[in-house]
């Protein structure tokens, strides 16, 4: 009875490497004298880059035959398997991680956050996110989700001298814990109804007539709640604006991009691999969530004057766009291939959204804290095109991408793919609602972008001083990623999890 499982270490390499770096960083921080703290940032960055290298090596192995590389398997279904979907998500998460680390560099120094612990927590959360992307059973997904959430509670509350930061931490903690409890209850019901935790076994069980369908349906829906919170879809979105405002800007960036991407990875895996045959149940629900998120997100964002809160509401609205294709799955129950196309639409949008959003957060972190608001108010950006032309152009480009308007071609292609997904599912009303929402979206992105070029007192933006190297690299990386997606979006479009038997 061989007790120890054969572990495919290469497949597990990326998250493993991150975890090791995290521990390394923590230990180094304990021994290194205070003035060496920039090294910690560097070490964290090298760790992430190594993980990215591992990811690419894996990609070379997996992509050609498109055969997923599973480990920790029980019979045919493995609970940790690396396929094109996982690799894409891990790559996106790691790139996002690099950019967030670059942003954090400046803020950690200026805001006096404890460098060692900050980077440790960030890396652990990132490792958790990577695991979710590769997880193929409910246990790993749940634990992974917790590994992503817990460090972030601490990170959010890290600005200990600012009362609002503690408040934000508490709000997020309470809402997150409750939604995890609800999700776990859902998992227990699904386990009870299908008899297994592995996604593809669940999928087979759901198709058998014998399973108690109401219980399974309720379980599926409750599981959806957990991911709904992570993705900050309406009505689970209340925590996001307050948390983004209270948290350090780098952590807000992490929340808005990495943790949201992890949430979507989990959601796509669960919905397509696990509950594919129940599309009739969760399809309409996801469509309603998508419609509500877009509309509420855009409407409230219209009234926002603080940059970080506007980004929070914008990310809620963008979550709505990402959910839309999945919502359209209801129309075509039982056709796995088309479900793959819809999932690919969401995955593509998430990848492009991640890169676009980071560009904006990079500029926000450069602007820093102005009278208690991370990234200041929109009016503080007035006339930035004159004092920091390159930065202003980068911000305008990223905002154009978010709005889905050329020259932001990446955003446009993402929107086209999502529109196509919704229409193949036959949800015409959702597509038209999305068209209206893109207009609402453009309204507030435009309000911000036009302030950059508005002739205002340029001495207020000049006060930000020269652009430090690490912010320049972060912005450069984000804009380069977006530009790449603008020209070659097929890198990220059309990638869906390999659906089991």
């Amino acid at each position, binding site marked *: 009875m061989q007790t120890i499982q054969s572990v495919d270490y290469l497949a597990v390499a990326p998250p493993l490497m991150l975890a090791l770096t995290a521990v390394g960083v923590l230990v180094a921080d304990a021994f290194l004298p205070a003035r060496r703290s920039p090294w910690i940032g560097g070490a964290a960055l090298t760790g992430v880059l190594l993980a990215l290298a591992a990811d690419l090596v894996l990609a070379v192995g997996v992509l050609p035959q498109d055969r997923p590389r599973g480990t920790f398997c029980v019979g045919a279904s493995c609970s940790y398997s690396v396929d094109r979907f996982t690799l894409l998500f891990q790559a996106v998460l790691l790139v996002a991680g690099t950019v967030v680390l670059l942003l954090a560099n400046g803020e950690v120094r200026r805001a006096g956050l404890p460098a060692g612990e900050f980077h440790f927590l960030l890396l652990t959360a990132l490792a958790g996110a990577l695991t979710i992307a590769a997880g193929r059973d409910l246990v790993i997904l749940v634990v992974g989700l917790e590994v992503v959430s817990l460090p972030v509670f601490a990170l959010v509350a890290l600005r200990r001298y600012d009362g609002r930061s503690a*408040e934000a931490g*508490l*709000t997020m903690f*309470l*809402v997150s814990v*409750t*939604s995890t409890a*609800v999700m776990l209850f859902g998992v227990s019901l699904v386990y009870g109804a299908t008899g297994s935790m592995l996604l593809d076994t669940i999928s087979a069980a759901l198709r058998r007539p014998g399973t108690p*369908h*109401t219980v399974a*349906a*309720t379980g*599926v*829906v*409750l599981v*959806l*709640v957990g991911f709904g*919170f992570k993705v900050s879809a309406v*009505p*689970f979105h*209340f*925590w996001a*604006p*307050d948390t983004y405002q209270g948290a350090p800007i780098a952590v807000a960036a992490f929340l808005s991009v990495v943790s949201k991407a992890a949430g979507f990875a989990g959601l796509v895996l669960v919905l397509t691999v696990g509950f594919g045959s129940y599309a*009739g*149940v969760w399809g*309409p*629900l996801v469509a309603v969530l998508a419609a509500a998120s877009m509309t*509420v997100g*855009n*409407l*409230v*964002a*219209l*009234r926002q004057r603080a940059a970080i809160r506007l980004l929070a509401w914008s990310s809620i609205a963008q979550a709505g766009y990402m959910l839309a294709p999945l919502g359209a799955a209801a129309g075509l129950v039982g056709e796995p291939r088309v479900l793959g196309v819809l999932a690919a639409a969401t995955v593509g949008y998430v990848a492009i959204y991640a890169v676009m959003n980071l560009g904006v957060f990079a500029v926000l972190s450069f602007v820093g804290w102005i009278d208690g608001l991370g990234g200041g108010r929109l009016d503080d950006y007035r006339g930035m095109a004159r004092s920091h032309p390159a930065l202003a152009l980068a911000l305008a480009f990223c905002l154009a991408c978010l709005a889905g308007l050329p020259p932001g071609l990446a955003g446009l292609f993402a929107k086209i793919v999502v529109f196509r997904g919704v229409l193949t599912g036959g949800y015409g009303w959702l597509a038209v609602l999305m068209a209206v929402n893109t207009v*609402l979206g453009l*309204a507030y992105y435009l309000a911000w972008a036009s302030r950059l070029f508005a002739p205002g007192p340029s001495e207020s933006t000049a006060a930000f001083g020269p652009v430090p190297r690490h912010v320049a690299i972060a912005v450069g990386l984000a804009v380069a990623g977006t530009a790449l997606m603008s020209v070659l979006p097929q890198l990220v479009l059309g990638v869906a999890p390999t659906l089991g038997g």
Partner: protein
Amino acid sequence: MTAALAVPVVLAPFLAAAVGLPLGRRLPPGIVAIAGTAVSAVLAIAVAVSSRPAETLARLTPTGGIAVTVGVRVGGLSATVAVMVTLVALAVQVYSVGYLRGDPRYPSYAALVSLFTAAMLTVVLSADLLLTYAGWEVMGVCSYFLIGHHWERPAASSAAVKSFLMTRFGDVGFLFGVFVLGTAAGSFRITDVLAAVPTMSHTTVLAAALLMVVGVVGKSAQFPLHSWLPDAMAGPAPVSALIHAATMVAAGVYLVALLFPVFLAAPLALDVLAVLAVVSMLGAALAAFASADLKRVLAYSTISQLSLMFAALAVGGRTAAIAHLVSHAAFKALLFLCAGAVITAVGGGLLTDLGGLRRAMPVTFATMTVGFAALAGFPPTSGFFSKDLVVAAAGHAASGEAALVTVAVAWLVAVAVLLTAGVTAAYATRAWLLTFFGTERPAREAGPVLTGPLLALAAPALLLGLAALRWPELRPEWGSALASVAVVVLGAGVVLARWRAAPGRDPADLLGRARPLLASAWHTDDLYERTVARAVTGLAERVVAVDDRVVGRAVTGSGRNAGRLGGLIRLSQNGNPQLYLTGLLAGVLLIAVGVVVLA
């Protein structure tokens, strides 16, 4: 060969205009314009002399449906009218050199008149109905520019706008008529259309004819679209002479004559035409008798004479109408040019300012007397012969021979023609007396440049009738001749008696209180002003208001409402985690219930 000759007839004035407009200032005044018109006149005469019908054809452009062609179509009718147009235009061009000496805008004026001549010749000689329409519209624009020659005077510019809009309204009718005929015949060429008339259904032909009537009424200032012509007198006199006497307003008559088979196939249209002609004939004649300005008298007289031609056409007298058209062109142009000379000499157009110019301006007196005689229809002037043909035609129709128009209408036309002859003689004599008799007034005879054309036009006004005796169908009939002469002598006699009884007093006082009513042609102009003009401007104001308030506001409003709705939802974001948790768990409950109920 004749067709090849006809093309330069049209192109010569067009080239003159094309050269004159940009370079006019540098060349001696009017040389280009007069040369162009002269060349055109000579060629027109050559074409008329050879008088063999011919046609040329060239495809202008494919349109996906019926192709638009360009070409010239020469026939007996078109040749004669072309000669008339070119000769009168030549006279006017020469006259204008003197009349507008020292006017800085003369070069553009001369070019526009040549452009007008080219447009009129296009209408006359065109082989394709669309090309006719093009010429028709260009004439309208040239008349707009020339009426608005003194655009610094508000009266002139508003008269120009009114003339263009009214004629444009008619032109739309004409265009639709062309569409009906063209689509029914499968081609816009006049020969094809006329050939296809028998095959067309009765309703199509009737519709086409009625639409043509609308077009023609607009252009020839017949009732109800007549009120623009009296105001058009704001333009310089030669313009009135050429455009508002001889050519443009006559184009309507020419067109009906050209498309006569269409009208023959739709007798109802002719009835309508006849009734309109009768109404405008009498109304204009009375208005001429009552109005106080010399040029307005002549303007109303033109409307009345045109109605005579239309009446002749209505009763089937096509040759009579054309004969009267030609003779009218000669003596009416003459009258306008004389009026121009008189006005420049005296410095005002009102009849009360004139008087006693007999000795001061002998040549003008002589030529204007010939003009008035022809207008009134005293033998042996050409006016007498052509009017007599019209009376004869009306007589035959009334006696039921031609049986074209319903007999009642034919009787109405005959009576109206005679009545109009009488009133015409009356107002001609009145104008003549008021201008040249009464208290002496210091005035100088106009220079040779002006009197030359007057004499040139006096000749045909006097001798044309006699020259035309050669053709049998142009000979007068004794019965109708005697009747018309009697009525003319009666009309003139009444006015002479009135003048001898109270020399110096305006014979129009005979009308007493009815005078202002008749002078303004039954206040039709103010009626249009109050109803159509005010309604349109009112509607325009309301449209602008609606556009700002409803359409504009609806859009900006939706933006603001979205903002307000956003503000409303924002209230839920009050920082209290408990509220967030309630929202979350309530959402979960709703979803769970939904799934349980539905699944």
